[in-house]
């Protein structure tokens, strides 16, 4: 029986894990390699590494860390951040990434998704979308949620899947960092229009939020979160136990 996935997300800058509230006020949390090993040992189903450095030096540190992680942690690794070209795909896939997530890079260059899907397969291409309600409409944001693109998010995601994205990470800017639960309404709207796995991101504050997510929206495949895991507010073994008690299939 297929299981719902629990995915900790590690934002990496200069070789360290950081996470902010509403994408700002970054706090240093820990070593990415240590955290990845810790999460893998407590039952995380997958890990996402976001490279939030902008410099080429930062890029090199990031790939070193990715390599070290992939040598020690044997669960799927998704890498995002700074993915603008096929060379970027190549760079991280060679260092042990299994999937590559595109966000702003695909907004700047929409042909990135079909080109990557053709070269590496759809299973390798994750479309990550930062979405916020603007005048009651789900709107796509770029640059880590700072820039309103004016693009209709649902249309963008639908198009991305048609172009070959094999998975969607939907990050609601409206609920991100608020810790009051996932954005069920936004997730439902996206799940209704795509046939590929949807990963919920933004808003988880406690175990109950994951239970509500999977109970309300059985079509959602995975829940992603960062700080609540990094700061130990939600422990993955306990989270999975509670999900199981609620008859949600998880890997124990």
């Amino acid at each position: 029986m297929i299981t719902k996935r629990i995915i900790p997300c590690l934002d990496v800058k200069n070789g360290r894990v950081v996470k902010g509230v509403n994408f700002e006020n970054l706090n240093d949390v820990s070593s990415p390699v240590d955290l990845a090993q810790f999460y893998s040992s407590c039952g995380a189903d997958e890990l996402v590494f976001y490279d939030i450095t902008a410099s080429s030096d930062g890029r090199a540190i990031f790939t070193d860390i990715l390599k070290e992680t992939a040598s020690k942690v044997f669960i799927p690794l998704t890498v995002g951040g700074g993915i603008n070209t096929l060379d970027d795909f190549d760079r991280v896939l060679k260092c042990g990434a299994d999937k590559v997530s595109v966000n702003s890079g695909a907004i700047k260059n929409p042909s990135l998704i079909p080109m990557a899907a053709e070269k590496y397969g759809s299973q390798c291409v994750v479309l990550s979308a930062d979405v916020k309600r603007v005048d009651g409409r789900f709107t796509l944001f770029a640059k880590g949620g700072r820039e309103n693109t004016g693009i209709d998010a649902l249309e963008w995601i639908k198009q991305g899947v048609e172009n070959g994205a094999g998975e969607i990470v939907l990050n609601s800017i409206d609920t991100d960092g608020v810790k009051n639960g996932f954005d069920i309404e936004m997730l439902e709207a996206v799940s209704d229009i795509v046939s590929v796995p949807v990963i919920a991101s933004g808003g988880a504050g406690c175990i109950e939020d994951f239970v509500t997510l999977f109970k309300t929206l059985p079509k959602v495949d995975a829940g992603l979160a960062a700080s609540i895991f990094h700061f130990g507010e939600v422990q993955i073994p306990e989270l999975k136990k509670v999900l199981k008690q609620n008859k949600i299939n998880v890997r124990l």
Partner: protein
Amino acid sequence: MITIIDYGVGNIFSLYQSFKAIGADVELTGDFEKIKNSDKIVLPGVGAFGDAAKILFDTGLANLIKNEVNNGKPLLGICLGMQLLFEKSYEYGEYEGLGLIKGSVKPIADVISSDFKIPHIGWNSLTYPNKSRLFETTPEGSFVYFVHSFYADTPEENIIAMTEYGAPLTAAVANENIYGAQFHPEKSGDVGLGILKAFYERT
């Protein structure tokens, strides 16, 4: 020594590292002599069947693999590497495979119920219709990581593990010294490492 065949297809960094993690003597290579001199072969692969099969046939690796396997050398195909062991694939056309195991590769869309998403991505559990050395140390019900849109349609005698995803799907196969896993043991945590270790030590 184990050789992982490097023919330019897929992410093999993790596979190499996972064999190292279990203490195996492992090399990543496309060198014919090294493959001949190794004790076991791993055939990896991610991507399209047609492209990968073409490389194997064009480079002569296909013949080399067949000869080695016919001489009794254990082989483990992983994901697309497993699919390539079969006679044929119907992935976007019709392509010839290595023909080491009877059967063909078909879209899972043909057999699973329509409310299941494709690809089949995620952790799913195993059952064993037949006994195999590959799973001697892995209890039934263990979870492994799958990413695929096609499955192997093969006689039941070749199936050593099944999984359930809208229909029963082939998860692993064996024909004497030839083994194949549809899932990714190198991405399946300790369970996966245990399966690789069983291939390394018990086949």
